[in-house]
C-alpha cells in the first residue's frame, strides 16, 4: 500500500496505462500543461493541450477510438459536458449500434463535480444520471483513492466509452492504494461496512457520510451496512439486493438532485425486486432540485448530511 490523493491516483493510473499500451493517449484543455511529467515520458503527441472546445475534444476522441487509439480526455468540470453531448451520446453511445456493431469506442472522459470548491452551478453539477440514462456508455464515480486508480485503469482497458466522474471533494484527500497493477472491475459494488438492520447505498463523497452515519447509528443500536456503488452504469443490482434482502431496509444517498437521479433507479429497483423483504419504504436522501450555489454554507447545505441519513435510516 502507498498513500496518495485521488488526484495522484488518477495520474498514476494514466501513466501506467500509457506505459502499458501505446494506443492510449490523453488530451484536453491544459492536460499537457498540468501533465508535463507525462509529456516528458510519453512525448507531445500522446499528451496534448487542446483548443478550448469541448465538442471537438470529445468528437476527436470518438473518431480516434473508432480507428485504433484509446483516448482519455479531460473535460474538466461536468457542466462542460454540455458542449460535448452530441459526441458523447449520439456518436460514442449510438454509432456502434447504428453501424450494426462495426465500430467500438474505447475512450474515457474524465470530469469533476460536487461540492468543495465553492464556485457554483456552472462548475458543480452532478449530472451523472444523464449518462446513466444514455445507451451505449458506462459511468463510474469512485469514492476512494484506490478505486480512482483501479477503476480508471480498468476504464482505459474497457472497449466502450466510459464517463469517469471525479468528486471534487475527494480529489485531494489521501488514501491507501495497493501496489502494482491495481484493477477494479466496472459493475461491481463494494460493501464498505457490514451491517444487519439497514442498508445505506451511495457513491462518491457521500459514501463517507454514510460511514459516519453508520457509526452514529451504531451508537443508537442500529447496525448499518454501507454499499459503495462506484460503478453507476452498469450498477451492481445483485450486491444491493442481497444486502436489502438481509436488512429489510434501504436508504439511497447521493449529492445529485433528487428528481430522476441515480437514486431513483436504485430505489425503484430495490422496491421492485426486493419487495417482499422490505420492512420499511426505501428512502432517498439527495441534493435538492436546485442549482448549486457558490456561497460555501449553501454549497455545504446542498450535500446530504450525517443527520439526514441517520433520520432516514431510523424512519
Amino acid at each position, binding site marked *: 500500500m502507498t498513500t496518495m490523493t485521488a488526484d495522484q491516483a488518477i495520474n498514476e493510473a494514466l501513466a501506467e496505462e500509457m506505459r502499458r499500451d501505446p494506443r492510449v*493517449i490523453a488530451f484536453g484543455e491544459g492536460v499537457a500543461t498540468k501533465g508535463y511529467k507525462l509529456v516528458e515520458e510519453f512525448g507531445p*503527441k500522446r499528451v*496534448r493541450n*487542446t*483548443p478550448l*472546445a469541448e*465538442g*471537438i475534444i*470529445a*468528437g*476527436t*476522441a*470518438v*473518431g*480516434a*477510438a*473508432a*480507428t*485504433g*487509439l484509446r*483516448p482519455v480526455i479531460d473535460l474538466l468540470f461536468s457542466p462542460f459536458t454540455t458542449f460535448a453531448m*452530441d*459526441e458523447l451520446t*449520439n*456518436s460514442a453511445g449510438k*454509432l*456502434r*449500434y*447504428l*453501424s*450494426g*456493431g*462495426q*465500430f*467500438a*469506442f*474505447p475512450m474515457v472522459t474524465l470530469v469533476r463535480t460536487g461540492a468543495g470548491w465553492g464556485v457554483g452551478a456552472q462548475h458543480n453539477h452532478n449530472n451523472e444520471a444523464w449518462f446513466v440514462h444514455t*445507451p*451505449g456508455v*458506462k459511468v463510474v464515480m469512485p469514492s476512494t483513492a484506490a478505486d480512482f486508480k483501479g477503476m480508471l485503469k480498468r476504464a482505459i482497458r474497457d*472497449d*466502450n466509452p466510459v464517463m469517469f466522474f471525479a468528486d471534487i471533494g475527494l480529489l485531494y484527500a489521501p488514501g491507501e492504494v495497493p501496489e502494482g497493477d491495481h484493477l477494479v472491475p466496472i459493475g461491481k459494488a463494494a460493501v464498505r461496512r457490514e451491517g444487519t438492520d439497514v442498508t445505506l447505498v451511495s457513491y462518491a463523497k457521500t459514501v463517507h457520510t454514510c460511514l459516519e452515519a453508520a457509526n452514529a447509528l451504531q451508537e443508537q443500536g442500529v447496525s448499518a451496512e454501507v454499499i459503495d456503488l462506484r460503478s453507476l452504469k452498469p450498477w451492481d443490482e445483485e450486491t444491493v439486493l442481497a444486502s436489502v434482502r438481509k436488512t429489510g431496509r434501504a436508504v439511497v444517498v447521493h449529492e445529485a438532485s433528487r428528481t430522476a437521479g441515480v437514486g431513483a433507479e436504485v430505489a425503484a429497483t430495490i422496491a421492485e425486486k426486493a419487495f417482499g423483504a422490505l420492512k420499511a419504504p426505501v428512502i432517498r436522501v439527495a441534493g435538492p432540485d436546485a442549482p448549486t450555489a457558490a456561497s460555501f454554507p449553501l454549497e455545504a447545505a446542498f450535500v446530504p448530511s450525517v443527520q439526514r441519513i441517520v433520520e432516514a435510516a431510523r424512519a
Partner: protein
Amino acid sequence: MTTFEMVVDREVTEALETMMLIRRFEENSASLQASGKAGSMCTSVGQEASAAGVIRALGKDDLILTNHRSAGHLLARGADPGRLLAEIMGKATGYCKGKSGSLHISVKELGVVLTSTIVGGELSLATGVGLSLSMSETDAIAVVFFGDGAATEGIFHEAMNLAAVWDLPVLFVCENNQWQAYVHRKETMLADHVSDFAKAYRVAARTVDGNDVGAVHDAAKFAVDYVRKQRKPYLLETYTYRTRGHMEPDDQAYVDKAELAAWKAKDPIQQLEKRLLEHDAITVAEIEEMRARVATRIEEATAFALGSPYPGFDELTTDVYA
C-alpha cells in the same frame, strides 16, 4: 490537367457510369419510398459529380466520413447497391444489419467509417480519424463530406481549427448544394462560399464547379495529394445544387422555380454526356450500354433488398456494448 483534357480522359467516362448508377439508385429508392416499400431517405440527385469526382481521387486506404446524404459517396466507393438498398429498407442484409436505415450508413470494409446524421457530427469525428492516421505509419488521409448547413454549426469551426493546429491529414469536402433542409443557404450565411471560412484557420481551400465532374476530379486530385504529402488539412467546396428536395417525399413548394430550373439545366450527367459526345469520347451506343448495365444492377439490387428478411427481435439489444 485542365477540365478540357479531362474530358478525353477515360476516367471521366467511368465517372459517368458512376454518376448514372447513383442517379438510378436514388430515383429507384425514392420510388420505393413512394410506394411504401422503403422508409424515407435523402437523395443527392443533381450532386453526383461531387461524389464521383472526389471519391475516385482517393486511395484504397483513405478513410471516408459522410452524413445523411451518403448514397452517392458509398456507391462511388464501390458499395454493393443491393446491401445498400437493403440497409435503407432496414433489412438484416444491409451493411448495418438494418439498424441504421438510410441516414447513418457506414461500411468499414470500404473505409467508410463513422457516418452521422447529426449535421456536423461527421465533422466532429473526422479530426479523430485524422489523429489516428497522423499517429501511425501511413500516408492515408481522412476525407469528410458535409453540407453548407453543417458549416453553420460551430463544430465545423472547431474541427477546422483543430485540424489546422494539430496538422491533421483531413480533407474537408463541403458539398454546397444551396439548401439546408427547408432553408436556403442565403438565409443562413452572408458569404457565398464556405471556402471563405478557411483563411482565418490558415487552411488551404478552393471552391470548384460541383456539377462538372472533370473539374471536381482535378481539384480533388490536387487536394488529396496536398493532404497526403503535407499532412495538413484542406477544404474543397463543391458548389452544386440539390434538385430533388431534402428528404423523400418533398414537393419543393418552397423552392424558387427559376433557380431550380437553372440548376437542372446544369445537370452533371447530361452535361458530361453532351461533352463526351461532342469530343467523340463516347458514342450514343456506349451510353445506352452503360444505362442498361446500371438498370440491371439496380433491378438486381431491388430484388435482393425486397427479398431480404428484417432483423430478428434479438437484434433489439445487440451491438450496444463491445
